[in-house]
């Protein structure tokens, strides 16, 4: 099923997927991290790191990425309401792994309106806060190519991943009480394809390939933007989380937070970072409720309740994050320059 030695990380999303059965090109043997797991055997090979590059300056906010994501992942987002803005669904949900967030900003230097549109979703951090915060063994995994994936069968729905994420991305399903987010289309990447959103993107504002190629591609885009007067154009690949496997080209890379509250300098909570140090204590606590939770899952399909003690401890775990995740209701600094 996995670990084919001939597998190579895809270099593009511009490709028609096969209909002949192809085994997944990577799997468990390629894990570099596994949540709440201390005895993960080291991977025998290093896959070429992949990345999705989102060029905000080429994005037309058409939501093809959202549409393609829904169709590929067979999700069923609710048909909501209009809230006076274009963002729909209103926020990321367990059925909507990616979302265009629209910000109207008047550039004080030019007095021109700029409509900053950012595709939000999992950044696939090299140093993933969600995984580090996760107490359920194997619920969150990271492959050597950089993909951070959720293994829903192992998820207990505690929500620590949400709190551990510097970008406020995962969402817990009210239906099955498990956590969901973008998988970087791991099923497609595993057969040499790119993510569905990158394939669909009409202007190819979303491109996909090896992280190295994507950085090189970004350089060209940044040079073009600088030639058009965006002196601060740059690549968003934040070092605070070890870099990411979803990167942005921003026209105003000096102020990422202009783009619907994209963290200027995201970092994982220091407490989550020192997870290893408290592994014993937390690990046991997590295991305890994990077993109970799994049973409840299997039998009643109801939400997992951690004990109050565990919950408080969990809050402690992720307190003191340097950058609070943008809250969906009020994202953006609210200076009146944003919507």
């Amino acid at each position, binding site marked *: 099923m996995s670990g084919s030695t001939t597998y190579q990380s895809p270099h593009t999303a511009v490709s028609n997927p096969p209909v002949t059965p192809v085994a997944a090109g990577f799997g468990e043997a390629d894990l570099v991290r596994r949540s709440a797991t201390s005895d993960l055997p080291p991977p025998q090979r290093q896959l070429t790191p992949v990345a999705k590059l989102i060029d905000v300056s080429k994005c037309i906010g058409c939501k093809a990425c959202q549409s393609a994501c829904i169709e590929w992942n067979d999700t069923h987002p609710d*048909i909501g309401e209009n809230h006076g803005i274009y963002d729909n669904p209103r926020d990321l949900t367990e059925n909507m792994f990616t979302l265009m967030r629209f910000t109207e900003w008047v550039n004080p230097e030019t007095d021109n309106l700029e409509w900053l549109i950012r595709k939000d979703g999992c950044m696939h951090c090299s140093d993933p806060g969600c995984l580090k915060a996760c107490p359920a063994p194997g619920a969150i995994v990271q492959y050597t190519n950089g993909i951070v994936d959720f293994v829903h069968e192992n998820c207990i729905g505690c929500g620590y991943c949400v709190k551990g994420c510097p970008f406020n991305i995962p969402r817990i399903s009210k239906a099955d009480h498990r956590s969901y987010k973008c998988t970087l289309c791991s099923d497609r990447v595993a057969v040499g394809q790119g993510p569905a959103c990158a394939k669909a993107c009409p*202007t*190819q504002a979303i491109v996909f390939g090896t992280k190295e190629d994507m950085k090189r591609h970004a350089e060209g885009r940044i040079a073009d933007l600088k030639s058009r007067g965006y002196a601060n154009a740059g690549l968003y690949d934040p070092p605070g989380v070890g870099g990411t496997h979803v990167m942005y080209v921003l026209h105003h890379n000096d102020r990422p937070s202009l783009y619907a509250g994209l963290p200027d300098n995201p970092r994982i909570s220091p407490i989550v970072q020192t997870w290893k140090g408290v592994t014993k204590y937390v690990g046991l606590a997590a295991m305890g409720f994990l077993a109970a939770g799994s049973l409840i899952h299997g039998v009643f399909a109801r939400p997992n309740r951690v004990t109050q003690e565990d919950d408080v401890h969990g809050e402690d775990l992720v307190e003191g994050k340097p950058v609070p995740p943008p809250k969906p209701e009020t994202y953006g600094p609210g200076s009146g320059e944003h919507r």
Partner: protein
Amino acid sequence: MTNSWTDIKNADLVVVMGGNAAEAHPCGFKWVTEAKAHRGAKLIVVDPRYTRTASVSDYYAPIRQGSDIAFLNGLINYCITNDKVQWEYTKAYTNAAFIVKEGFGYQDGLFTGYDEEKRDYDRSTWDYEIGEDGFAKVDPTLQHPRCVWNLLKQHVSVYTPEMVSNICGTPKDKFLRVAEMIAETSAPNKVMTSMYALGWTQHSHGAQNIRAMAMLQLILGNIGLRGGGMNALRGHSNIQGLTDLGLMSHLLTGYLNMPSEAEPDYDTYMKSRQFKPLRPGQTSYWQNYSKFMVSFQKAMWGEVAAAENDWCYDYLSKLDVPAYDILRMFELMNQGRVNGYICQGFNPLMAVPDRAKVTSSLSKLKFLITMDPLETETARFWENHGEFNNVDTRSIQTEVIQLPTVCFAEDEGSLTNSGRWLQWFWPAATPPGEARPDTAIMAEILLRMRELYKKEGGAFPDPVLNLSWDYHNPREPEPEELAREINGRALVDLKDPADPSKVLVPAGKQVVNFSQLRDDGSTMCGCWIYSGNFNEAGNNMARRDNRDPSGLGTHAGWTFAWPLNRRTLYNGASADTQGRPWDPSRKLLEWDGTKWVSDDVPDIGVNAKPGEVQPFIMNQEGVSRLFARGLMRDGPFPAHLEPFESPVQNVFNRRMRGNPVGRIFESDVGRFGNADEFPFFATSYRLTEHFHYWTKHNRVNAALQPEFFVEISEELAALRGVTAGSWVRVWSKRGSVKARAVVTKRIRPLQCDGKTVHIVGVPIHWGFMGAARKGHSVNTLTMPVGEANIETPAVKAFLVNLEPTTAPGVQS
């Protein structure tokens, strides 16, 4: 489109005005982003709203909807005054040098010949002076005071930057910046493309909007070149095809015209269609009209169509009005003069202006037949949906028959895109339930009516009984059979006129293309411009060679483009009068001393000498027209006209309302509002998340944009006490809707003629059927006005009022 989607990557400057390509045509817009990324092209957007196209533009300028002619004439004026004209092109390839008849003039917003009673012009002075040799007189030095160039110069001189700003509300500095950027493309090696859509067509002066840009493109030398042209984006997947095939009241196939009552016989009909060249040596390709007409008549009525009966000319209806277009039909319906209506994949209750009138009209029908893959509001116009469709069901006596059809996924055939590519596709799924193809339904209706006529007799059954219908299975013609019929074939051996011993096409074989058609009854062809689509080489629409050796986006081996697989129209103008390409790096055509060489199909005789035979071969002049003669009902030059409902008066004639020859029906005169009662200026448009009234049936698109809304500026919101996301009521003289309010910086009030104009944006897309939330519809508000030349409903500019309200179904 004169060019193709892939060709847009060759542009140096893209102007999106009268359209919103990024939202309505995202994958076509890709080629704009390609031009930007790989050519360093710039994108200009001129629109009342800062759209998603504007969000990736290099420069955005606001404009009041409906004032585009003033803006464009201002650009022409700017180019002329600043000597930013591609002179060699303008002199050689336009009618700038042609001399116009004495007596032609323009004053107080009107051209000579206006008759207020008839609301029409006498167009006799709008023409050239014709010399004794039968050719139009010209002055190549452009000195003659009545040459087209000097008349144009004078006509646009009033559109100064100040005047443009005053009419359009565009700040003067923004207009001038746009003008500077556009004027740069007058250099022979700089090319601009124009991308437009219904933002230009849906005005009472829609055709003149487009003409104004076409004229600008001509004096800049941007027509016929790679990366240039006039590119109508077109709304639906095969609306280009349906127009090409003449599924309109006033058309036959391939832009042949339906005859009028003034043309009771074939000879009279053909007399006005001789199309003799107006300059020596010019092509005037429409001289071949009779070959296409007779071949079409043979396709319709086969052996019955003979020389003795003028190829069944009598079978064709003769129009007593310019067209029984959709607005006229609803007017007649509302008068009780229409009994039956067939809606094939068309939802007029949503798509046609003035919904109250449409509902009233449909209620007067005896029968309504709908053919559609989906539920439509039209098929259920009689069903009460509370305030979303508040009708008295019992009183509606219309019998409705709803027929389920296949959709594209279950169908086979070709679609013509806006770049004129006919692309074949294959069926992928089994239709649901008992859904059937439209071809089968049309065949069944014909065959069953035929049976009744054979049995019972009745009104003039001959054209019905004799209609050529010799398909393998007459109850369900196959797509390939129909495609072959469109291409045409020889009915007898076609002999070479130069050598009668040589047979060019044996009887029964497909013609290669329309060049082999004849007017003696020896050929048949359903639609001449499509001929070549399916010849003896096979189904050319199914070709899938996607290579592009030039790297310039020609893709000549991909499917089939009409005419003759030509990808860029007027491409003869891509070379100078010596036959050298204006820009060698974007070479399209080149004269090698004896013939034209190209990776495209030359749009000029392959041996026609440059400088002698001019490239606008469809025109009698051989050149393009800056002066349209009498071919447009509302003037040979575009002149600024206000919409019928406007917050400001026409500054050139304050008495004049709308287009003086725009089409309004007597009964609609009372349905216009004025700015005192309706102070805000609304416009309608699509959103990228939806397609027309279809995708509200799709759970995915419904989730992406779930609910009807209107967009207003922060200033208007403050004026009316509206907050984002709250409910507002918007009403016009025709009706009232409730919508969510999107309050945005992307719409700003404009200053026009001393007034502050607040704009209200109203997207289409919602109704009372489907997966999205039930909503009111924009056409409750719009006016049933027809464009002066082609009767397109003018729904892009109308007056409304607006106030806060409560949610639908909740008492305020």
